[in-house]
């Protein structure tokens, strides 16, 4: 009796969980925890907090996985509108920290509404395309682009280039998978290339500086070039097999800035070497690949474009973060998925994985 109950409970629990996605995510999380431990060796609370973050993330993942896609779609418009409203509130009433207006005070705590848009924007756009799937006209793409540009502009204005890129990318991926004409894509790329000089003048000083220091970090070795110089030293000195766990000198002597958050890859690379990096790249490839496979197998437009967008967003996180830490991309605030310390990104990413799981486990049931 009890056994039966437990068995049913178990099957209920795992019904919508995608085992490959879960295993890959858990593996990366485990690696992440050991790395956070090394990066915050002098602060025990960090490890515990990150473990809790991960637990919350996993619960969120599981919960989202339970929701069938059509329920998810219902969140599309409200989340988008809520997100947009909050962004407008931030624009007027946000708290300024280090020259950037990103936070909204709720009295007892502070929230960063832009984070919500990472899910809300692709959700909204996927819903939009889903609704108009049969008769997609050029204007639908234009409207979709506008729906994307509005939050993107608000976030970029804060300024928060990292989040803006992620939100923009997530939205773009939806439009891309929805079948935006190559001509338009080509045209947009051309426009983007043409607008670069203007964009340069639009950038904030600190953003321009980051791009310049990327080209030659030695121009400002103690200022904005410091991050890049120290993290490439950490990576390079790690060698093929790394200096060993807890043995990274760049890490433990605090040469790597932001070492438990955005620059955690430098810590991992220093201690685990090229071998570790290879394994980590493979794990992310498997994760993104599994996501794309889910997208390919998905049965509705919403499911397809949403799964595709979530997968490529994950890739974008990985690429932008690794590129910046290894000194090939400018420094923007993008965490390394399931590795970097921090609850917000973890929950957002977990929700993304949950959406993938939901889409995959509900693919046979959906007939709209």
């Amino acid at each position, binding site marked *: 009796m009890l056994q039966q109950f437990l068995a049913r409970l178990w099957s209920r629990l795992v019904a919508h969980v995608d085992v490959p996605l879960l295993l890959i995510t858990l593996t990366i999380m485990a690696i992440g925890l050991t790395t956070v431990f090394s990066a915050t060796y002098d602060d025990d609370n960090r490890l515990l907090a990150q473990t809790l973050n991960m637990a919350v993330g996993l619960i969120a993942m599981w919960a989202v996985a339970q929701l069938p896609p059509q329920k998810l779609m219902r969140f599309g418009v409200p989340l988008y509108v809520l997100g947009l409203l909050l962004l407008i509130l931030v624009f007027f009433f946000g708290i300024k920290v280090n020259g950037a207006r990103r936070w909204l005070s709720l009295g007892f705590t502070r929230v960063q509404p832009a984070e919500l848009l990472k899910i809300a924007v692709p959700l909204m756009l996927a819903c939009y395309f889903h609704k108009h799937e*049969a008769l997609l006209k050029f204007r639908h793409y234009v409207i979709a682009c506008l729906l994307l540009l509005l939050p993107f502009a608000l976030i970029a204005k804060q300024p928060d280039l990292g989040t803006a890129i992620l939100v923009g990318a997530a939205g773009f991926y939806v439009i891309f998978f929805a079948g935006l004409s190559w001509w338009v894509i080509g045209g947009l790329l051309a426009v983007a290339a043409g607008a670069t000089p203007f964009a340069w003048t639009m950038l904030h000083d600190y953003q321009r500086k980051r791009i310049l220091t990327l080209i030659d970090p030695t121009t400002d070795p103690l200022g904005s070039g410091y991050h890049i110089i120290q993290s*490439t030293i950490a990576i390079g000195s790690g060698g093929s097999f790394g200096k060993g766990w807890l043995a990274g000198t760049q890490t433990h002597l605090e*040469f790597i800035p932001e070492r438990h958050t955005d620059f955690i890859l430098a810590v991992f690379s220093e201690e685990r070497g090229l071998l570790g990096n290879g394994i980590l790249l493979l794990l992310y490839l498997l994760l993104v690949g599994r996501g*794309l496979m889910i997208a*390919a197998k998905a049965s509705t437009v919403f499911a*397809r474009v949403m799964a595709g967008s979530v997968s490529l967003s994950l890739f974008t996180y990985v690429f932008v973060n690794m590129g910046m830490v290894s000194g090939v991309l400018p420094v923007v605030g993008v965490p390394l998925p399931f590795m970097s310390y921090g609850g917000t990104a973890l929950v957002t990413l977990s929700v993304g994985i949950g959406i993938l799981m939901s889409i995959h486990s509900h693919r046979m049931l959906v007939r709209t």
Partner: protein
Amino acid sequence: MAANQSPLNASDSELRRFHFRVVLAGVGVVLALALLGTRFFYLQVVQHDYYTTRAEDNRISVVPIVPNRGVIVDRDGTVLARNYSAFTLEITPSKVDDLEATIDGLGQLIEVLPKDRRRFRKLLDESKNFESIPIRTRLSEEEVAKFAANRYLFPGVEVKARLFRQYPLGPIASHAIGYINRINKRDLEMIEESEQAANYKGTDHIGKTGIEQKYEFALHGETGYEQVEIDAGGRAIRSLSHTPPVQGSRLTLTLDIKLQEMAEKAFGDRRGALVAIEPATGGILAMVSNPSFDPNLFIDGIRSDDWDLLNNSPDRPMLNRALNGTYPPGSTFKPFMALAALETGKRTPGQTISDPGFFNFAGHQFRDDKKGGHGTVDMYKSIVQSCDTYYYMLANDMGIDAIARFMGQLGFGQKTGVDLEGESEGVLPSPEWKKRRFRRPEQQKWFAGETISIGIGQGYNSYTPIQLAQATATVANNGVMFRPHLVKYITDSRTGEQTMIEREPLRRLPWKPQHVETIKNAMIGVNTQGTGARAFAGAGYTSGGKTGTAQVFSLKGGDYKSSRLKEHLRDHALFIAFAPAEQPKIAVAVVVENGGFGAQSAAPIARMVFDYYLLGKLPQGAAKEDDVEED
């Protein structure tokens, strides 16, 4: 597969297009991740060695450990220069944005006087930017604690424990000992040239004058090193290796500091110099240059008002008169002239002249300062009574070349080679010297008339007190000549090994013993019945001496009335002496600037020095001035 489940609402072409894009995205993802992999390969394999070095450079800092500077002691072990540890408050200007604001802030916490600010500013001008510069020295425990509690308010400011040089006896023997001060550009060049740069990492003070300068490398010691692991904030985490420094060598001087102190006191506020030498070794027992200065003023960088005071004083306390003061020897030259006469065969001791009180040469009358002359004068009497005519004639008979040759062997007009920097040569007059000295042909010619006054130590003659002392010591030591020196031996701090300085004589002058005996006898006569008799009356030992007066202001005819002349135009008083006469243990040369007659002011100083050195007697009350008129 997907096509099988193709829903009603998706056309095949749309689905194909979607799948194509998914595959495309997949390819893009693989390529992008491969690009990152390549980047990692480049950094971690290709450039691995470079970044390993960078990481090591980051974490390992080599910190020099400055050795304790060697101690300087006198011949009896009395400490003349030592080190003590004290806290300083130092600012690293490169780490501070607003120096004034930082100093103002510090000033509210602990006392920062205007003079501290001035000194800081001066050091700032002289220093490299990355050095830390003291704003306050010698902090009290309370001040250290006060700053430590507020340290976080002052980035780039720190308390350092430093060793300071101290000269416990202050101005005593300061010209001999010298002082240390912060290393400047010239010192740096010198260090580079001597290939000591590695050993001076971390050293910020260097010997500037005196023994401190001459024996810099012996006193400095060997710098130790500590390899420390540092974190990004530059804080030392742990020591990786430690090479201890080796303390600088201990210098034991030939100086007898009590004698030195007594001799300096004997000068009172009179300007002048005294050099006392141990004839058998050349060791300098006392070297006075009065007035002197307190070397302790220089250690943390001298304050500008102190510097102005020392530098602009008409008494020139910074001038080491013993080495750099050049004076005509006056009558103290006569014993050496007499010895030259004996050695060259121009005179015998018994040979006499008749002194009418003057010597005529080429229509010019050279006067003796005793009107009517000394009558019949032999060599003994010429020295005891200091008869000028005897020496006018002698100089004329010998000729300038013979005089210059003999005096040159005695060290006149040359650096003695004493172990101090910057010694003056003085002037040993000769036709060659004149050629070198003057440019116009008519000035270059030597006139026979110029030889006459050379004989009595006037004319172009100009020697340093140390040359005079060396010559006196050489006569006292029967022609065995030593290089005068201040350091007796150097003790290696690690092995305890002692290296003696100057054990061998410079040269042995082949004088006939009876000739030296004659001169010494006459000099004994000076102190028993001649111009030095008053000063040496009742001495418990026999001594030989000779008074001298060097003209500062040449009087064309007329009487010399010292009281009427301004003090600084009065003649310099000189005295040379040795004692005890049978086996001289000390030879001395004394110059009292503008002291008038040698017997009057210089001889009593020599008496006090001898009394103390030979008998251990301290002078009773102030130096009594004699009023001997003749010289």
